């Protein structure tokens, strides 16, 4: 399968195989800007299999969301056919309205407040700002 190189845009590489679709859903990309390609189960020397996303004619993605779903991913910014910047993503320290608190005793279940989670350093876990309920990953 061949997808042509893009001249201007972003390539999100080294996505865990199977996570590409979820990332695409949550990135909330403006689909009017250009072509979007999602490649799944691409052979990878480093990881065996990976997913990959190509976004044409855009220069910004929500790194926080990306970091939360798959911090193994690499973001490559392409300008005029060459790599302008390559960056890895970290787990974001704070995420708002990405994870929903599932604790039925949490105030977020009755009050119209944002669902805010904070990273617990060194653990990869997130805790609800209000009730301290922990989630280990994006899936929980």
């Amino acid at each position, binding site marked *: 399968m061949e997808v042509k190189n893009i001249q201007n845009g972003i390539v999100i590489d080294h996505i865990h195989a199977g996570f590409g679709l979820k990332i695409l859903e949550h990135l909330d990309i403006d689909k009017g800007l250009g072509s979007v390609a999602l490649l799944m189960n691409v052979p990878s020397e480093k990881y065996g299999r990976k997913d990959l996303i190509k976004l044409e004619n855009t220069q910004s993605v929500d790194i926080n969301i990306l970091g939360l779903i798959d911090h193994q991913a690499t973001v490559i910014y392409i300008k005029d056919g060459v790599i302008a910047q390559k960056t890895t993503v970290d787990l974001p320290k704070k995420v708002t309205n990405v994870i929903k608190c599932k*604790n*039925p*005793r*949490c*105030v*977020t*279940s*009755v*009050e*119209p*407040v944002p669902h805010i989670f904070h990273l*617990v350093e060194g*653990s990869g876990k997130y*805790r*609800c*700002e*209000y*009730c*301290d*309920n*922990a989630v280990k990953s994006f899936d929980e």
Partner: protein
Amino acid sequence: MELKGKNLISPMDLSVEEMTFLFDTAEEIIASPQDFCELCKGALLASLFFEPSTRTRLSFEAAMLRLGGKVIGFSEPRSTSVEKGESIADTIRTVASYADIAAMRHPKEGAALVAAQKSTIPIINAGDGGHFHPTQTLTDMLTIRREKGGFGGITIGLCGDLKFGRTVHSLAFALARYGGIKFVLISPDELRLPEYVRDGIVDYAEVTDLREALPSLDVLYMTRVQRERFFNEEDYIRLKDSYILNAAKLKEARQDLMILHPLPRANEVSTDVDDDPRAVYFTQVKNGMYIRMALLAALLGRV
């Protein structure tokens, strides 16, 4: 020590130095209450209880009245616009227009934080569901300090409902900052201390047998299995009698043990323990008023 205008939502909102200041102030009040009877004259406390309470509400209100201040509020949310669906945010904005400080109890975890984020007056968390109860912690710690002279090196057993016991969560976090404290966590598997609290304490052991743990303890903190925290009545009935402390069991405990309980109790501390000099839970109740006097005065900038 400048505590004026602060909120008290989590036990960690107060530094060790600030807690010491409050304990010292409470000691001064205990020694000479008449010297403080006009300290908060002209100040108004809003007492907002969305959930039933005897000790916490009455001790806050008594504390403010004994400081010369006044109190407004409710102990029954059905008599307020909350019944019409008014949010916590709107309720607190309204209350902040009338009062100088508010103590709030709410069944939802994090409710006091929501209130503090929207309030222009200091908010004191008087219990938010099964989460935190920082003024009970101040009460517990003042009682331990008065009886034991401090916190360093004590072995404290936390017994009963450690999962939903907000007083236990707050106390564990606050005490963990003092050196050399050992925690013995005594609970059935289903009511273990939550992970986020265990992560905050260092030296602890988890056991299921109260009798086995008793001889090693300097302080035993008993708690009630709380019916109101269970969604499933069967689970409550199965677990409610997990631990019962009575005079017979106490024979195995040390003579200088302190028995604390945040109250109310169900049957977990038998009444035959009440006259034992090691049972200090009614002294604890009185200390609760004094420490809340110190807290109100400090957050209002009167000490």
